[in-house]
């Protein structure tokens, strides 16, 4: 089973049926599988705070949501995380492409990578870091934890987890 199929399988097994995405190269395979899955409504969003609004509405409407985005989006969504998702106590699994880590070819990505965990820690957001593919064995438990505690939860997936960028 590919890692993309495993991730989407865990989402669906946890009744996640509404997923919004802002794309990343690393997450392209997961996004393709979500788009094709008959049990998941995939609504691409233009910006990650907009996506979190969609997820908040979907959850209040009875669907379990998730957002897929890059770690640069943490910089975009701090206010939304604090004043919507956390303030109203809503669950939100965030599957995040952790750009700017080992095997990253684009220097600018490192500039947000160095802030990512500090910002998540400052926000008291439970954070898990997938570095090797076996780390994804915990995804099912992380999703159950998210909907148990009604919090946003970050799952950072780095380049090593995805197998690097070819020659990097």
């Amino acid at each position, binding site marked *: 089973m590919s890692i993309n199929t495993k991730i989407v399988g865990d989402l669906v097994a946890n009744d996640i049926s509404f997923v919004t995405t802002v794309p990343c190269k690393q997450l392209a395979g997961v996004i393709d599988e979500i788009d094709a899955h008959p049990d998941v409504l995939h*609504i691409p*969003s*233009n910006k990650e705070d*907009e996506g979190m*609004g969609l997820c908040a*509405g979907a959850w*209040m*409407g009875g669907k379990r949501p998730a957002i897929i985005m890059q770690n640069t989006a943490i910089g975009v969504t701090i206010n939304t995380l604090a*004043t919507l998702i956390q303030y*109203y106590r809503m669950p939100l699994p965030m599957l995040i492409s952790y750009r700017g880590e080992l095997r990253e070819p684009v220097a600018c990505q490192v500039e947000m990578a160095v802030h990512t965990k500090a910002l998540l820690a400052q926000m008291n957001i439970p954070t898990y870091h997938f570095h090797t593919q076996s780390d994804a064995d915990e995804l099912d438990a992380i999703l159950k934890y998210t909907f148990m505690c009604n919090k946003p939860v970050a799952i950072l997936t780095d380049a090593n987890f995805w197998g690097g960028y070819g020659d990097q």
Partner: protein
Amino acid sequence: MIRSDILKDIAPILRDQLVVCNIGLPSQELHMLDDQPTNFYMLGTMGLSSSIGLGLALAQNKKVISIDGDGSVLTNFGTLPTIANNVSDNYILLIIDNGSYGSTGDQPTYAGKKTSLTAVARACGCENVVEVAAKDTGKALQEAIDGDKMTIIVAKCESGNIKVPVITMDPVVIRDRFMKAVQA
């Protein structure tokens, strides 16, 4: 007419509907005029009323009305293409366009100058976009509810505010009673 006049006019229409209401004075005014468990008041997060409403409409079958403002739509412009490309016929976006940031002291918005939100919504691909004068908002809203077609209403009104108390209800209480109303 100013925004609070429109809200007063349409409150009887809104009463039986799921409403997601914009941050600041719009939520405070609706809360003061006719507090209902079917109202979701935004206490923060400017710009996301339309996104929350669309997510809610896509997730279940009841009608959903997002009340938004011109300033908030300008803040979250990406919402209009998302709405246009994910048609949900139980969704109505009511933009009360007073050409100003009312909650922060009536500073002018670009929607009150050269930018037409009606034209922008159409250019984004929204199919049923209606622009009305403030006094006709109730009629347009009722028609949209009866029409079973996703509709964007841009209600043009004058800028200005009334004195209203802040909402002191706990956000989790607002959200919990709203979710129970959604499920009822």
